[in-house]
């Protein structure tokens, strides 16, 4: 008995050693051919529906559509919840890069978090593909050679929505501004357009973020007698502002609301009865053309609840990953992982083209440009089915939609 035991023991030890060696050898071979993407966004708060798990579903769809695994390249996706707090976002980013060998930080809504991530990624020479944060500072005062700002920004929203409101006669403005980096940037950029078009900003309030009750601020807006109330906020803040503005009769008395950043999930939550007639600017709408419809059909089963239509932030994640993987396939994994700046430069050199966001290009300052679309929310009578919410009012060509590079003041371009 003892002999058998000993034999078993020795055999077991040998087997363990052999098996133990095998996976680690395999792991090394795999690691040499693996890129890691960390999706960092709001998984549990007010921005969850505009990015959250929907962004992750779009990333997985992009990996599948890119056909990169057939070339023997593995793509690993990590998901993190930054809870809209810059400290949490910064800690997760450091952990992912330093410990988990993550190559790309993706999505990152909430401008204050995005700006923190922007700095860390640049220090570590990795890649930051931002889809869901809006501040135009990411390609302006705080631009970085490691960052591409993919989907939209405060300048583009201000120009399209703000410009359209001023042209329609809304020449006096009052702002409800979410009190953090994003709100401040959106207010600043919109105010510039209003003034340039001959309008006036008669006042504004900075509202604590996130907020629930906006009635006190809306009454102040009404007292200012401004023709337009600019909502420099997003997600749940925008929904509550619009809902309560209707309740307090602002819109019925002729005041116009400018939802400077509104997503299709916000419209869905408000219902067409309340949201009808609002205008908003997006770079993606699921029902825009055959390609966007085809993309939506593919990704929809994996979206939250199997019914949430992707919004522009999520579609931007798809587009960014699709383009990044093209660069990885061309450069090879070791080269693509070696230097974030080099890979970003390669991405800038190639035009972008995918089903979700169509054709576009990436400028030297990291701004991806494409046409922006001004939509009006349909009335319940005009809507022909579920999620049929927008009609296209106007398209701004890619070259005019975003801030000219010279006006951004991006520092690394000068060196």
């Amino acid at each position: 008995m003892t002999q058998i035991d000993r034999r078993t023991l020795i055999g077991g030890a040998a087997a363990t050693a052999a098996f133990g060696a095998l996976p680690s050898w395999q792991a090394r071979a795999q690691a040499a051919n693996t890129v890691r993407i960390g999706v960092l966004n709001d998984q549990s708060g007010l921005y969850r529906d505009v990015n959250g798990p929907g962004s992750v579903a779009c990333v997985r769809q992009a990996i599948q559509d890119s056909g990169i695994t057939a070339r023997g390249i593995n793509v690993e996706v990590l998901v993190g919840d930054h809870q809209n707090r810059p400290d949490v976002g910064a800690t997760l980013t450091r952990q992912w890069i330093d410990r988990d060998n993550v190559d790309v930080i993706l999505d990152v809504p909430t401008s204050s978090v995005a700006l923190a991530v922007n700095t860390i990624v640049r220090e570590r020479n990795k890649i930051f593909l931002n889809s869901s944060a809006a501040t135009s500072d990411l390609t302006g005062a705080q631009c970085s050679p490691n960052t591409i700002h993919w989907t939209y920004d405060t300048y583009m929203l201000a120009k399209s929505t703000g410009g359209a409101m001023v042209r329609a006669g809304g020449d006096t403005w009052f702002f409800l501004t979410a009190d953090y980096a994003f709100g401040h940037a959106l207010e600043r950029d919109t105010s510039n357009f209003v003034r340039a078009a001959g309008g006036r900003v008669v006042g504004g309030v900075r509202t604590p973020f996130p907020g629930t009750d906006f009635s006190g601020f809306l009454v102040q807006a009404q007292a200012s007698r401004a023709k337009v109330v600019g909502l420099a906020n997003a997600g749940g803040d925008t929904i509550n502002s619009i809902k309560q503005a209707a309740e307090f009769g602002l819109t019925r008395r002729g005041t116009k609301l400018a939802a400077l950043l509104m997503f299709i999930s916000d419209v869905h939550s408000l219902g067409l009865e309340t949201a009808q007639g609002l205008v908003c600017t997006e770079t993606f709408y699921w029902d825009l053309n055959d390609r966007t419809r085809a993309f939506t059909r593919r990704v929809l089963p994996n979206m939250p609840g199997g019914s949430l239509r992707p919004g522009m932030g999520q579609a931007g994640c798809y587009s960014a990953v699709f383009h990044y993987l093209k660069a990885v396939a061309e450069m090879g994994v070791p080269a693509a992982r070696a230097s974030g700046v080099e890979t970003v430069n390669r991405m800038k050199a190639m035009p972008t083209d995918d089903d979700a966001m169509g054709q576009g290009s990436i400028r030297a300052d990291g701004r991806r440009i494409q046409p922006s679309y001004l939509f009006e929310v349909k009335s319940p009578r005009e809507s022909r089915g579920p999620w049929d919410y927008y009609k296209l009012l106007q398209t701004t060509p890619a070259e005019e939609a975003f801030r000219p590079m010279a006006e951004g003041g991006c520092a690394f371009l000068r060196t």
Partner: protein
Amino acid sequence: MDEIFGIPAPLLFGQLLLGLINGAFYALLSLGLAVIFGMLNVINFTHGAQFMMGAFVAWMLLNYLGIGYWGALLIAPLIVGLTGVILERTMIARLYKLDHLYGLLLTFGVGLIIEGLFRNEFGSSGMPYRIPAELTGAWDLGFMFMPIYRGWVVVVALVMCLATWLVIEKTKIGSYLRAATENPALVQAFGINVPRMMTLTYGAGVALAAFAGVLAAPIYSVNPQMGANLIIIVFAVVVIGGMGSILGSVITGFSLGVIEGLTKVFYPEASSTVIFVVMAIVLLARPAGLFGRS
């Protein structure tokens, strides 16, 4: 136009009124908390989630069963109150003999789980819920445009607070409750079923939260975070009023709503923190709260 402290008078009156309306929600929620704490000695951190459940049950009643606002106002608190009874029987009742901290941790955890479940099912943007047809429209008060629905909320909240106070202070069952709070063993000795009374008290406190949730559904976006946003403020209200003091929480609820409203005019950025500043000052001067017994 007349000005008070450099602010146009109409604007100031408007904010006072709106503060009172928000105060109505604070009062209703803190009332439930105070009742539960007074009786069970449990700090019910699930309260925010139960407020949210009230709003969601109202939404479900409308969309799945076609039961409108008025029905929901009655049925939603009953359903959510029943879940409260189950929670108390199966979990909270086991913690009465332990330190407060355990009850706090349990209810906090349950609250997070409930919010997570709703978030998974309904997402974060929320659901539309319309103001009932009878209460749509608004009064023009001269200094502001006052939605009829908000007026209704203040009136109902006041009636509800008064009714709860009357039940506890003036009825026989209320006197049992108060006696059981003081000395449960003695009350039990008189043949009164104290554990059942505690269960029902918890259920009633939870039902109050759900009632406030139904009231809030047409005003705020019905979303899983709606309770979490409010509950921290409500806890501050309860602490300022004095833990367990019913009258204290009602008065503090309304007055803090007003203070918050005024802050929105003078320094909007601080409107979410002003309540905690007040809390710090009150705790320094009167550690038991304004109406609490030390």
